[in-house]
């Protein structure tokens, strides 16, 4: 049984890490990172059967892939907090000679990262390939992939969307961060995504929805999704989140998609996020 209170505490600490990392780098993407803190916490601290000693091929493990690489702060904090590397390294985010590059990469050998992402639209295809390899090896674990919603404007996503049901890739769970925002504004103003549930359903996916900022709902929905695996269909969870969740002045706007808070804003943000597990040390 998941300890929801404990998971919420972890997510709050991860939100603090995000704010501090982006502030110290004076750049990065806090909005989507804050919105996704709950799903990352749920995956790495409850749902995934994973091994932080890290093997690239992930045989015998559930594997997570991040397609919208710009939310690297939440990815790095989650990986560090779940044991992939020391939390002290979070202080090197976006710094020269560091492993915590602006967008995640395997190039610097950071444990927990299996593919570079940043140029959008590529992660779903990669996750499908990994899911196929698991099938070939007789490995019954699950592959998870997170994409943004603006990212669904990339054509490659729909190539992959067509492929997975055709090839009955049913060991795969796609989670779409459906916060409705992208760099230039709301999705509906930039390029409308239309009826997303109907689109994924029409492509042949099992479609579910959840509140990505409600830990209880995340745990229940993803658990239910796992029970639907193995039925010849890939699963798409459309996850409603609020960009900037947890920091009042960053919520419900695209303004903080890719902007770092200054020291004063950081202080206000941190005052809204309780230090639950101990901050990573200042460099």
């Amino acid at each position, binding site marked *: 049984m998941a300890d929801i209170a404990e998971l919420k505490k972890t997510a709050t600490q991860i939100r603090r890490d995000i704010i501090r990392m982006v502030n110290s780098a004076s750049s990065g993407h806090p909005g989507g990172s804050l919105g996704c803190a709950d799903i990352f916490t749920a995956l790495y601290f409850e749902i995934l059967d994973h091994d932080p000693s890290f093997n*690239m*091929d*992930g*045989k015998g493990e559930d594997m997570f892939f991040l397609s919208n690489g710009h939310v690297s702060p939440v990815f790095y904090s989650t990986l560090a907090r779940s044991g992939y590397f020391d939390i002290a390294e979070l202080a090197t985010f976006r710094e020269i000679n560091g492993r915590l590059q602006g967008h995640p*990469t*395997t*190039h610097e050998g950071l444990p927990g990262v*299996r*593919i*570079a*992402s*940043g*140029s959008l*639209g*590529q*992660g*779903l*295809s*990669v*996750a*499908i*390939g*990994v*899911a*196929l*390899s*698991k099938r*070939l*090896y007789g490995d019954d674990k699950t592959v998870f992939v997170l994409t943004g919603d603006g990212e669904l404007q990339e*054509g*490659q996503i729909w*190539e*992959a969307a*067509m*492929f997975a049901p*055709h*090839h009955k890739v049913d060991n795969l769970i796609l989670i779409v961060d459906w916060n409705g925002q992208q760099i230039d504004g709301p999705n509906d103003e930039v390029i409308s995504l239309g009826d997303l549930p109907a689109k994924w359903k029409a492509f042949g996916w099992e479609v579910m929805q959840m509140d990505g900022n409600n830990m209880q709902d995340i745990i229940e929905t993803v658990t239910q999704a796992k029970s639907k695996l193995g039925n010849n269909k890939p699963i798409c969870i459309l996850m409603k989140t609020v960009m900037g969740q947890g920091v009042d002045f960053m919520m419900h706007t695209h303004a903080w998609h890719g902007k770092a808070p200054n020291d004063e804003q950081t202080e206000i943000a941190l005052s809204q996020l309780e230090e639950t597990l101990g901050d990573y040390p200042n460099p």
Partner: protein
Amino acid sequence: MQHINDIEVLGKKATRDGFGAGLLEVGRNNSEVVALCADLIGSLKMNAFIDEFPDRFYQVGIAEANMMGIAAGLATGGKIPYTGTFANFSTGRVYDQLRQSIAYSHKNVKVCASHAGLTLGEDGATHQILEDIGLMKMLPGFTVINPCDYNQTKAATIAIADYQGPVYLRFGRPGWPIFIPENQPFVIGKALKLAEGTDVTICATGHMVWQSIEAAKQLELEGISVELLNIHTIKPLDNEAILASVAKTGCLVSAEEHQKLGGLGGSIASLLGSHDPKPIELVGVNDTFGESGKPTDLLDKFGLGVKDVISAVRQVISRK
């Protein structure tokens, strides 16, 4: 070491047939090998592999970007994926996927590309990519191979499975003379000396190796002794073999079915410029697009004929 006139023609087949035969053999020898294709199974000669290993093949449809991503995922899981489509759709169309999901991510993907260059023929310039060597040699970590005949393509297809890292394997459509012995081992990155000579070095890759053999035979009649190096691996380039040959002959001609800008000739010119400046002439396409026509007619029209190799040799010798 053999003389240019000792090179024997063993038959005629397309290099893409060599790929098909190599894929089947490497599939039998290595159970980690899997294959993907973007709706061009027949053109890529992948049928034999698919018939024998249906569970290790994925039809992706006309969706090359997705194919490259899936290949990166299969490699992440431990497999050795071979992707098959035309050279144009294997490179220019999917450059960002190759760059981020494969090259930057260090994935062990073999990008196998048929119908490269002018010798694609009648389909015309939309499909005749002449920029792919340049695109691929610029990607950090990619090995770039352009074998010259059926036997070499087959051997290369097999050899790249044992090499850990991304590879671009480029081959072509038309039937072409076979002159590399069947048992010739394929060593990635090692130039193959096809003929010993003293007056000029020709460094040729792909279909242009045969054109260079024909040119060298005619030059021999004029008393010009050609040293012919088959540069099947454009990256990493066999610097040592090229410099050793030029130290002896004093000049060099490069020959490739590709733009002069950014291809094999550019790599060699850069090497000579920094190590041993000697006259060099490039045989290649001169900053233009191809067109429809018969393969050999196109080679002649766009400066890749036997006559063009010969005139480049005369020119470079005159500059010594």
